[in-house]
């Protein structure tokens, strides 16, 4: 985990050199659980992310305690019982756009992409492949995706008492508004 943070910092420091990298510190990642018992939504608007448009590399860094829930008890259970955020405070994703050649970063527009990479949370790393959109806009790049995550794949155990309240598969939403780092 420490290595990813250091890598992130290094890439951040070198972003200024070539103008090929885009960053945000205000990205959004949310998840949604729907069951007949209740809907649960967690939002995080403090995601750090880097996109290298020359290689298609993407890095996301999240502080688990930054997820916000409507009810205080949901937030407490999420942090203490499921994600154990004192023990595992950060989550990361490191991946690559596999069809980079189909995105023209010099031309505004929306492009469909597939991103493969490693998602680490709760100290478990799994390879995932997700579909998403990259939108080239004036002065930046937006990226968004929706995909599913199964908590059990990350050794997140949900006790029987609340098992019916939490969906077996959670829908994850990613929305980034990257800006180029200006040369100094």
């Amino acid at each position: 985990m420490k290595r990813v943070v250091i890598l992130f910092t290094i890439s951040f420091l070198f972003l200024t050199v070539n103008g090929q990298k885009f960053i945000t510190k205000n990205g959004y990642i949310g998840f949604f659980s729907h069951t007949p018992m209740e809907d649960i939504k967690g939002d995080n608007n403090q995601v750090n992310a880097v996109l290298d448009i020359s290689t298609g590399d993407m890095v996301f860094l999240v502080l688990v305690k930054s997820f916000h829930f409507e009810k205080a008890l949901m937030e407490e259970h999420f942090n203490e019982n499921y994600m154990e955020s004192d023990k595992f405070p950060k989550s990361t994703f490191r991946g690559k756009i596999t069809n980079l050649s189909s995105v023209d970063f010099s031309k505004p527009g929306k492009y469909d992409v597939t991103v493969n990479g490693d998602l680490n949370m709760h100290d478990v790393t799994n390879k995932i492949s997700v579909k998403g959109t990259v939108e080239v806009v004036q002065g930046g790049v937006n990226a968004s995706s929706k995909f599913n995550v199964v908590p059990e794949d990350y050794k997140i155990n949900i006790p029987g008492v609340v098992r019916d309240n939490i969906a077996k598969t959670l829908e994850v939403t990613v929305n980034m508004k990257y800006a180029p780092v200006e040369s100094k």
Partner: protein
Amino acid sequence: MKRYVKILLGVVLFFALAGIGTALYLFNMQHKDIGKAKPDFVITAIDLQKAFEDNETAATAKYVKKILEIEGEVESVKTGEANVLNVTIKSGSDLSSVICTFVRVTDPAKFTAGSRVIVRGECSGFLMDVLMNNCVKIK
């Protein structure tokens, strides 16, 4: 029905109702009203960021999950998903700041870059910046 059976039933009923009431209360409990809460620490954004940069483990133990009242200069204001507001407060570092997320105050006009503010919120920890959540503007 014998008297003691009635008393026993009454006691059981009382505890059952109290249990249901407590469960409902906990289930629906809202977040702390940070605006009325007493801050655990009053600190400048510069000192807070420095504390995390110097020793993240010690600063995490001291400040995370605590209510902090921080004072500093607004660097930038960004609107996030569902009109959430992210206000970045300057620190002594070029690369790292204090980012405060406001869920209730969604009017970016309440913050202008360069102005000095006092913000109260819960400290979530450190990524590249110190992150604060459930923030309210004090001044």
